[in-house]
């Protein structure tokens, strides 16, 4: 009888904790997208969700490192912007539809005079994530071709 009470109490606490977590989730502060001051620029978006898997973190890290390593000047001038976006936040859900995102993705978006001109998803990051140098080279060549 005592064991049942303990089990029921534990379950009740778990349900309560889950409810609180869901509520806190919805009340989380929202992050807006940054914009460059340049008239023509490319934004490299890394899209993620609330849950961050180790592979997803690695892809974000490699993307950032490749951009900082190979495009320091462009980052400084505003010709290139690196932006991480949490698509689980309600105001960012539109990105899922805009760029046809089915999982964590790196997307290049070209802007001119405040308008989006073109975009390109880099799906091969999933294949290259096991090889750091291959990942760096892939991101570098794709961005270089887009700038």
């Amino acid at each position: 009888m005592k064991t049942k009470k303990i089990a029921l109490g534990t379950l009740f606490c778990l349900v309560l904790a889950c409810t609180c977590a869901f509520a806190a989730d919805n009340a989380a502060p929202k992050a807006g997208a940054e914009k460059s001051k340049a008239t023509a620029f490319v934004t490299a978006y890394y899209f993620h969700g609330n849950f961050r898997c180790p592979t997803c973190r690695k892809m974000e890290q490699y993307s950032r490192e490749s951009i900082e390593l190979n495009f320091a000047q462009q980052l400084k001038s505003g010709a290139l912007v690196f932006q991480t976006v949490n698509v689980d936040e309600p105001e960012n859900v539109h990105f899922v539809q805009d760029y046809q995102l089915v999982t964590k993705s790196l997307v290049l978006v070209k802007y001119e005079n405040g308008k989006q001109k073109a975009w390109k998803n880099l799906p091969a990051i999933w294949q290259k994530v096991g090889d750091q140098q291959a990942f760096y080279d892939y991101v570098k060549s794709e961005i270089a071709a887009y700038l």
Partner: protein
Amino acid sequence: MDSQSLPIITALWLGILTSVSPCPLASNIAAVSFISRDIKKKSTVLWTGASYIFGRILCYTVLGACIGASLVNVPLVSHYLQMYMPKVIGPLLVLTGVVLLDILPISFSGLVISQDRAKRLQSRGAWGALLLGGIFAFAFCPVSAALFFGSLIPLAVSNKSPLLFPFVYGLGTGLPVIAFAVAIVFGVHGVSSLFNQVTAAERFVRITTSAVLILIGLYYMAKYIFYFDLFLM
């Protein structure tokens, strides 16, 4: 090998790849425990295993059919399945584990396992496995979403086969789980028969199953509901 069979083998391989990738590992361990819990009856394990695979196949095939018929918006479906379904798994596994222990005076159709209801066990276990397979299939993580929506669906669409490819993929996702479950049951059964300890071993397996389900359920809750930084998977 002709050019027709190669894409099918690729679909099967993508399914196996999904099953052995790190992020569904915890749910696979839970599935192996659930399927192999009744070591006394090997046929029950086979039935339960078949139901689990069927649950997965059914979900992927229905999803493939909906995508093929353009009934769903693929990116949004992928997004919401990844966002909400893994949150369901944790509480579900904890509840299943607790019910398996016979602590709670609740009866959940398809999930109740009681020693004195041996006859109904087989069909109920099978329904539970079907449900578990379906829920696990829909609980996409980033890797499985990339493999299903990013690789399998384009393959199915390019081969004009939105039903067969998800079907084969579902089969692939279930095969490693069933192989492990069957190996465990036949292994434990063989060893325990040798020492005439099948009943004792069954009790041990049942308690271990409950403990595994509860622990994995708590792990899922920590990871997907509370977003604790767990670097394991």
